[in-house]
């Protein structure tokens, strides 16, 4: 049960279900990371610091009243967009992509900030608009969503770009986007598919999709990853090979074992049973989010909880789908499990905000 612990002058806002399940998931994640990094204690210690800091951040961010987020949401998104531009100019280039902003002690992946800022801003923009959302507001929202999407996409980072895009669309949809508009635009998108294919996808992205459709068509070897990932998962069988016994991960056949493909390591070492257990944590967290959304105090909170939890779920599904080979490879971490800084912290931030939305009640209701 979400709690509000009241002391003399101030209250502490806290949801024990989310807090415990996320903490557990993070700790299990550390345990998996130890194996995926082939027993590299440094990696695990660094990750533990992020996890500890993340949990602290989650706690802190659940304290302010939702009105704080509502009021400052414009500021957040402006800040986030400024950071994106800063990245464009000052960012560190890795493998031809500029995604990181160096702060000396910490490199920030700025798209992770905007992934949260965008849905909150849209929720604060749409929460008082009458149903269904008018064409004008739809157009304004979509413009913003597309603008932000292109900012991320141009880094280039198609994976995160899609998540950001979906985050915006979720809010718009949950806030009451008219069905008429949905069906019309869906039809238009299908019709414009060839145009998008030719003008908006980089050659390597097109190749990934082609390879995905036809694995034998693989001039750049991008299906090596997915092949090795499938071998890792499949060879885990029902019960798995045992902790640190996964040959695919330990002998480096599995690429990106600590980040994008950590799920394959878990599947190899703990089998089908192991991943069912792991996924039940995620399942529980999502169910809890639905419950919290239903019981949120107002439309803004509902939209924010719904939107952020869907961002979380989408990230998870994109990661899982990619690792088992049902969608093309796009870089996408497994929330709370994969090694990472910004991407890991972004989910603690998101859940901090979700808890804030869920635990603050307005005494005076209309």
């Amino acid at each position: 049960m979400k709690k509000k612990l009241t002391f003399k002058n101030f209250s502490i806002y806290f949801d024990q279900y989310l807090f415990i399940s996320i903490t557990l998931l993070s700790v299990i994640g550390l345990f998996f990371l130890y194996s995926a990094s082939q027993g590299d204690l440094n990696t695990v210690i660094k990750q533990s610091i992020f996890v500890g800091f993340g949990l602290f951040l989650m706690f802190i961010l659940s304290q302010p009243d939702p009105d704080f987020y509502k009021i400052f949401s414009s500021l957040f998104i402006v800040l986030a967009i400024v950071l994106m531009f800063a990245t464009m100019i000052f960012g560190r280039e890795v493998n031809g992509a500029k995604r990181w902003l160096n702060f000396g002690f910490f490199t920030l992946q700025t798209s992770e900030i905007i992934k949260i800022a965008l849905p909150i801003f849209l929720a604060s923009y749409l929460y008082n608009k009458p149903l269904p959302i008018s064409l004008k507001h739809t157009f304004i929202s979509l413009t913003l969503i597309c603008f932000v999407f292109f900012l991320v996409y141009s880094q280039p980072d198609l994976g995160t770009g899609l998540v950001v895009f979906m985050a915006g669309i979720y809010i718009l949809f949950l806030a009451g986007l008219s069905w008429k508009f949905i069906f019309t635009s869906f039809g238009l998108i299908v019709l414009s598919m060839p145009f998008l294919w030719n003008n908006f996808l980089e050659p390597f992205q097109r190749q990934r999709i082609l390879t995905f459709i036809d694995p034998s068509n693989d001039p750049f070897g991008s299906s090596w990853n997915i092949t090795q990932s499938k071998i890792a998962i499949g060879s885990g069988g029902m019960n798995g090979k045992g902790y640190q016994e996964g040959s695919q991960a330990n002998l480096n056949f599995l690429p990106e074992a600590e980040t994008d493909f950590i799920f394959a390591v878990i599947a190899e070492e703990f089998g089908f049973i192991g991943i069912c257990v792991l996924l039940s944590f995620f399942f529980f967290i999502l169910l809890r989010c639905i419950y919290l959304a239903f019981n949120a105090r107002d439309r803004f909170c509902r939209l924010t909880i719904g939107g952020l939890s869907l961002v979380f779920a989408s990230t998870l599904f994109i990661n899982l789908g990619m690792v088992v080979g049902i969608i093309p490879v796009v870089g996408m971490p497994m929330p709370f499990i994969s090694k990472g800084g910004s991407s890991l912290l972004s989910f603690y931030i998101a859940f901090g905000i979700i808890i804030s939305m869920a635990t603050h009640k307005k005494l005076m209701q209309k």
Partner: protein
Amino acid sequence: MIDLNERYAEKKSFFNRLVVVYVFFGFVFSFFLYQTYSLQVSEYKDYETAAIANKTKEVLVQPVRGIIYDRSGKIIVNNVPTYDLIVKASLIKSIDAFLSDLSPIIELDSDELDYVRENFDLKARYNRELIVKKNLSREEIAKFEVRGYKFPNAFIDVRYSRYNNYPELFSHAVGYVGGVNNDELASILNSQSLPQIETIFKYSNGFQIGKTGLESTYDQILRGKFGKKIFEVDARGRFVEEREFIKPTNGENLFTTLDIEAQQVAYDQMDNRRGAVVAIEIDSGSIVSYVSTPSFSTNAISNGISSRAFNALIQDNDKPFFDRASQGRYSPASTIKPAIALFGIENNIIDWDFSMEDPGYFILPEDQRVYRGWRKGGHGNVNLNKAMIVSSNTFFFSLAYKSDINKLIEHLSNFGFGAKVCADCFNPDKALLPTPDWKMNNLNFGWFKGDTVNLGVGQGYLSATPLQLAYYSTILANKGNSKELSFIHEKKDIKNLNIQLDNINGLDWKRLHQSMIGVIESPIGTAKILQELKTYKVAAKSGTVELVSTDTKEDYKIIRENEGNRDHAIIIAFGPMPDPKYAVSVVVENGESGGSVAGPVAIAVLNSLIDK
């Protein structure tokens, strides 16, 4: 502000929409679970196999070749250990530092240094061993043993070299081994159902294959079967640990019928003259001696020879690589006469009582052409026995003149002329038994009566290898019975090649042997010079191969100024009589006299074989 109804509608819409999204997610999730289930449960076997295939790497382990023995069990070819300095490349941080530390102990020449520097990175990356120096000397080994503690990642290991204990004696009989090209390697591995993959070598020269002689003929038996080492490897192909070792099956040893002593005698007797000696154990048809001279060192060829020395061998006018024993073509000359005599008796053209006048030449009735004997004035009245002993050409010219050429050819082919006579010799030449068809096809001329006459004294187009002559000698000794020649006593697929001669009885054979004994023992015998060289009786027939036809001795003296024009000396012999055990043939190129030049070689070889 939104009123309550609107607020309710909004909430309901939100729930509906959230449910829509989650239902969609539910489908996606189910599909994901289904996919995972099929990977991990339905298709588990396939992926397990794939994971194992990923991490295992098989490496072949070379077998050691079989040892080759002589007939008394003495080793002819052995595998001699050589000691190589080897490093575990992946454990060495700086190869230059290592080499400079090593230089006071073991010196490397610039080729060796280049090899190490070029290969170090690759070997280190894949955790493979790197051979730093091959064939360490005793001194180097001793030095390394003392100061080796400074080099924990280097060690000395045994690699073998194929080593012939008598490198020049058996160079043509046993042959040598050498490296293989890709096609040969593929076919060898294919015969053992193995892929062409990385191999751990037992020989410092890597893959070895018999190139000539017995090493080649019996390569499959000597070679052995490759073993396997199975390693766990990582994604980069680096060895992580050894999992399994299936030992190679070393090659079978080869017990030959060769006799080192007789071989040595034959080789010494030839004294680097161009020629060949082949000796046969009559009962079994086994080859006990097989020499072609001049020779070369098989060890040098197999284990390293400078290109200058190699070029010198290649360009040597005496052609040491040429196997004269099975590939040298020589006219049999007068050694053919016993076979012609048998033909005469078999076909009732002559008998032992028949005699004729030998004026020293034969005139062909058709065109009055003169065919000369070797002795001016001839041998007077000659019967078959005398004709054999004094080697009367006139007698055999006239006998051949009366012969049917086709029958004669068939008769000679039964004695191995123009035929394959050895089961396991390396690349034996069939030489030439000329026929009218052959002459028409190759020389565009019909067969003349004169050609048949020439055949009667083993001159003309007829040629034979020393191996064929030894086989012929064996048949004569064994009264028409013979086996295909072989280097291996127990060889299973040996053919019996007995000759059917209906008209020849035991007495005829005895008389023939007597006449051949007379070649040495008679005071008028062409090889009487050999009488004192032995303590038992030997049957023989000498021959002198005319390379340039001359009418007078004076003419010959002129042409013999050029060594290459001199007659070849040739002899076939068998003994001890009357129950011969060994047959031998000797050819000495440009040796001039069959009896006095080739003869002593033959007798020396028989002596060494029979004295045992």
